[in-house]
């Protein structure tokens, strides 16, 4: 696998000046194919974070663990073996291990974690997974509803509000419905204790559209 380092500072997306995450990100070669920038953050948000945002409101950060908030493993830190390829996505939030806080005060941090067969994933999606585990933003890019539904055969995340479907095997691309933007993801890795961690922040700003 070819490994590249990105240290790009600025880019323009949809005519709006955005700031690429200042941290250096190591990504697989396939990610470069889909083009810059995978890891972006609205300038105001990034600056605010750098200053005085409480850790429980910060967007997911590199090194965060993932805490499950519902179901059998509620309150546990995510490990790949907690998920199976036949199970529904599980609701979670990033957890800041340094300050030992769940970043739940910012609802845009809400995640859906799931496990799929890596061989079925698009290469650029696989690069953001670890042992088949993927973490998608649970906030619909249409009107920011919390995504809860799952179409198992298609492997689509489905928003109940206005029925947009996002393909989990292809980086959350929009398959049907009114959303215009794919779902952001959190690139995943494993730490030395076998916990799933964020390798970087969201691939794009989570949240709904304004028009």
């Amino acid at each position: 696998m070819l490994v590249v380092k990105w240290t790009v500072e600025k880019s323009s997306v949809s005519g709006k000046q955005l700031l690429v995450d200042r941290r250096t990100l190591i990504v697989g070669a396939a990610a470069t194919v889909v083009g810059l920038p995978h890891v972006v953050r609205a300038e105001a948000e990034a600056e605010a974070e750098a200053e005085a945002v409480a850790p429980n409101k910060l967007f997911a950060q590199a090194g965060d663990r993932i805490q499950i908030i519902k179901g059998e493993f509620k309150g546990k830190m995510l490990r790949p073996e907690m998920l199976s390829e036949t199970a529904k996505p599980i609701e979670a939030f990033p957890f800041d291990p340094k300050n030992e806080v769940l970043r739940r005060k910012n609802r845009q941090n809400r995640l859906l974690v799931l496990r799929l067969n890596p061989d079925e994933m698009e290469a650029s999606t696989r690069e953001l997974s670890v042992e088949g585990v993927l973490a998608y933003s649970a906030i619909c890019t249409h009107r920011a509803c919390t995504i809860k539904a799952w179409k198992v055969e298609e492997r689509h995340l489905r928003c109940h509000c206005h029925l947009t479907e996002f393909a989990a095997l292809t980086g959350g691309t929009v398959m049907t419905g009114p959303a215009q933007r794919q779902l952001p993801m959190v690139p995943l890795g494993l730490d030395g204790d076998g916990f799933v961690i964020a390798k970087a922040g969201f691939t794009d700003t989570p949240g709904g559209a304004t028009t």
Partner: protein
Amino acid sequence: MRVLSTAIMALAAGGLVTSAVADSGGKAPYNPVTDARLKNPEAKNWLTWRGNYEGWGHSKLKKINSDNVKDLVPVWSYSTGVSEGHQAPPMVNDGIMYVSTPQNQVLALDAVSGTEIWRYVRKLPGDLKQLHPTNRGVALYGDKVYMATVDAGVVALDAKTGKVVWDVKAGDYKDGYYSTLSLLAANGKIITGVSGGEYGIRGYVTALDAETGAEVWKTFTIPGPGEEGHDTWKGDSWKVGGGSIWMQGNYDASSGLIYIGTGNGGPWMPDTRPGDNLYTTSVVALDITTGKIKGHHQYHWNDAWDWDEVSAPLLMDINRDGKKVKALVHAGRNGYIWTLERTAEGPIKFVKADPYVRNDAFTKIDQKTGRPSYDPAKTPGVNKKATFCPSLWGGKDWPPEAYNPDTGLFYIPAHINLCSEYGGVPLEERDPGELYIGVPIDVILSSLRFHPSVDTKKPVPIGQLQAWDMNTGKMAWSHSFNDTPFWGPLLSTGGNLIFTGGTSDRMFRAFNAKTGDKLWEYPTNSGITGAPSTFEVGGVQYVAVQSGWGVDAERMQGLLKDMLPKGRVPKVPQGGAIWVFALKGK
């Protein structure tokens, strides 16, 4: 008077105003909207959401009529710049049009040319979710324009400039509260309300001082401890019991009573909140001066079917056994036309209930009280699935009915042949601001069913425009729309016409009000879920409507796509526009 001074935020903090025509708003005289004008609205204007306080959706204008409507043509249209459900009527005061859109914009336009005078764009919070991305209309009152917002606020704008006069918070959007209703303006007050029944809220109506935005009164739709009706709830269920306010109330200016419809109980499963659950799925009479509940009628108790009774009843006089009855008439989501009698003191009396679509969950209606009895097999619960008709969207959802005093007919935008199947699961702990329904979302998204009598090999009547004679209780005519949802608010005119859209073929249509014959149609940019209006400027009558598909119309369309053979359910493009029509050559 309790004043929420801390809630009054800095001017312009909540939005941006752009003026497209230099100074035009500031120099022209503005005709203030007074209580007297609202009580007796002039035919040439459209000053309220339904044209009058009684909620008729009727105009006396008749230059456009059933003889010449075939010559109706568009004279201008204007893109709103946003997508989703455009449900608000274009409101007109002496040639200036005011229109609200999704994302809480307000546009002020020259009603004849479509030239933009100003546009207010609300800066909505980045973490705001929108289950219902829409707004149902502004209020015009005094020299201001008022709008309720999806982040549970109310903003007052200067009618001439669009500048923010005040901006107040009426609820906590982070806890699931939001507002999509148009606002009632009367008696120096602006009346708002909150939605969020799917998020575990406790509904309420709030009156704000029209000049300052200060809270005058706030009345919960679910009584608290010690209040009458509280004993219809068990334990703490009242704290999250729903009773949303989705729609503007109608108003009897002579008695000072507001009649407002309330949403269903929450969470959805009835056995999670045993009891009648007052004042959910009801009409409530509120004293406009104090906010006190002076009367109510609960259409159905302990709802199990998501049949919010969101629409306010229409105020009209009907003949009953040779006597005039000051009536309240409501086409219920539960599939019955409810006829009630209102009193100046407040108490509401049941008169009768007639089914206008198939309801298989009610076994009978008590003829004295109007209280329905239920079929347990048609009543879902926790771990109990049931199939029932009409569907969770009911016989009629939010799109408003209309009443024409000339024909004496009451018009209903109905859905027929649709049913639902679902059951609940044990409740989890409430997560503030997140869904709190008690029915898995996957189940809701696959819950729509056709009635067993439907043969999907043939075109399926789903939408139905109905006309009812309220004096005889008989249906006068109906017009069915096949293979399509019908989410069209109705406009009635003195020209013997009913205007509506609502279908997936993007059409705006006119029907003969007496016979139901379709007289005219025109394909617009998107599907029409906006309330039409009509007005006159310079001796010319115009008809206006917003086209912009979204919200529940789109949801129903999305589910029908999987229920009908491929190719029968078209894609409906999104993106809003205002359309204005007039007779060719006028």
